[in-house]
């Protein structure tokens, strides 16, 4: 035990570990807030789809040798998010199919471009680290951290400010529209925020595992709690807790950060399911 604490203390004397912790907690918080809405709106897979888009955009940015990747990834992802969430029920290609379509195309084209115009010697290593986020969280700079902090504060502030409207638009879009709430604008807002969160989260868990950050806390929380506010609060708490324990565990047992966090989320989900089952049978 003492040994473990000593190891952690040693690691936390490095700034990059502290940066990883700060970003991890913030991203976990933001993604869990939006997760509840997305799961309830039946958009669980949008995280997956958009993260692949972000991967595609990153590949293009790498090939073009842009100095700042964010300037390309963020707008591209936001545009795709808007297209996916806006098309809604009237689209010719329905929600889940549209997500699958965009997601695999972006993934394929991204990998194709990186392979065709390779700039580094270790392509598969590069791709692997983008997809699974194995190292990128440990290479954050001070600017990255500040960007992450600012964007997270904006996301959280918007969520609190529009909490009741987001609830209404999620629960019943038709009623919201009929009473004069501009439901389309709120859908747009949610789309933009989720795109921002996903681009941030790419550093933490990588493209392939982002869905876990979005859906696991929401699903776990929905198992136990029965009103919206409690669901949101508990899913935020749970998500932050899992992110912290995942990062600490990954340091101690030397596993990749992203997949360890997801494993922690999965464990929490199983525990919550068992609690829900037990309380039901009583």
């Amino acid at each position, binding site marked *: 035990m003492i040994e473990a604490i000593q190891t952690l203390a040693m690691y936390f004397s490095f700034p990059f570990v502290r940066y990883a912790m700060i970003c991890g907690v913030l991203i976990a918080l933001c993604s869990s807030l939006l997760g509840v809405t997305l799961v309830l709106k039946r958009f669980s897979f949008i995280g997956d789809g958009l993260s692949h888009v972000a991967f595609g955009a990153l590949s293009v940015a790498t090939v073009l040798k842009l100095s700042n990747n964010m300037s390309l990834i963020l707008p591209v992802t936001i545009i795709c998010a808007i297209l996916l969430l806006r098309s809604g029920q009237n689209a010719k290609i329905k929600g889940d199919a549209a997500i699958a379509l965009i997601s695999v195309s972006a993934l394929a084209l991204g990998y194709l471009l990186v392979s065709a115009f390779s700039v580094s010697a270790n392509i598969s290593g590069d791709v692997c680290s983008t997809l699974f986020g194995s190292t990128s969280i440990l290479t954050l700079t001070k600017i990255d951290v500040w960007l992450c902090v600012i964007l997270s504060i904006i996301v959280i502030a918007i969520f609190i*400010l529009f909490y009741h409207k987001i*609830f209404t638009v999620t629960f019943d879009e038709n009623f919201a529209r009929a009473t004069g*709430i501009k439901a389309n604008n709120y859908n747009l807002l949610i789309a933009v925020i989720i795109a921002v969160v996903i681009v941030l989260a790419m550093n933490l868990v990588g493209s392939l595992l982002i869905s876990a950050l979005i859906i696991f806390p929401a699903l776990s929380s929905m198992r136990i709690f*029965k009103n919206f506010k409690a669901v949101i609060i508990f899913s935020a708490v749970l998500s932050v807790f899992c992110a912290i324990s995942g990062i600490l565990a990954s340091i101690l047992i030397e596993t990749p950060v992203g997949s360890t966090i997801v494993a922690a989320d999965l464990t929490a989900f199983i525990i919550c399911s068992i609690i829900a089952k037990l309380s039901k049978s009583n």
Partner: protein
Amino acid sequence: MTQLICKNLCLGYEGKTIVKNINFSVNSGDYICIVGENGSGKSTLVKTLLRLIPPLKGKIVFKDGFGKGEIGYLPQQTLIQRDFPASVKEIVWSGCLNHSRFRPFYTKEEKALAQFNLERMGIAHLKNTCYRELSGGQQQRVLLARALCAAGKVLFLDEPVTGLDPKAVQEMYDIIKKLNDEGLTIIMISHDVHSALKYASHILHISDNAFFGTTSEYLKSEMGKLYDLQTQKTQTELKTAGENK
């Protein structure tokens, strides 16, 4: 007092006409049932009246009680709502949102209004219960209480009894009747023509040859007679079936 006038209305989506030449007016205290076959444009009409889609042709004059944010609306239940983790209280509160603009919380008055409407629907004791654990009839009452929070003088109901058991259907009709007696104008889409004729003061039948008039006028009209014949036929069929047993 006239609340709404529709003249030569043509409705539809993206330039495709669904219904033509609808003429009717709504007076305060009316109980109007909109009937018609599936796909005849009933929901399109309600969406137009709620200002969600513009009419293709014709004129709608909104008067007293039809202002923006004054209309109470009970939409059909969606799939999303079935497993939604929200308490009854939270849902009814959300009916007050049309007054709040950018205020991120509810005022005391709004909460009192929600409480009043919960009591009006007889579900005040379910306030903290989870919506997905309620029966179909109770869920409809919650949504009705929410609609009442938003409503000034007009209530739109979109097939309020679909999927309910017979007892809940009867209770729902009684509640709507009570609200109408209290002075609310009711505009209801219904598949249940029998009950529509029993409760409504006016009938709007949407088809190629739309009809609007009082319920007794409707029974005398061609379409009403057709319906009457049908019910007689079913009744005789039921009778003979009973006798055969």
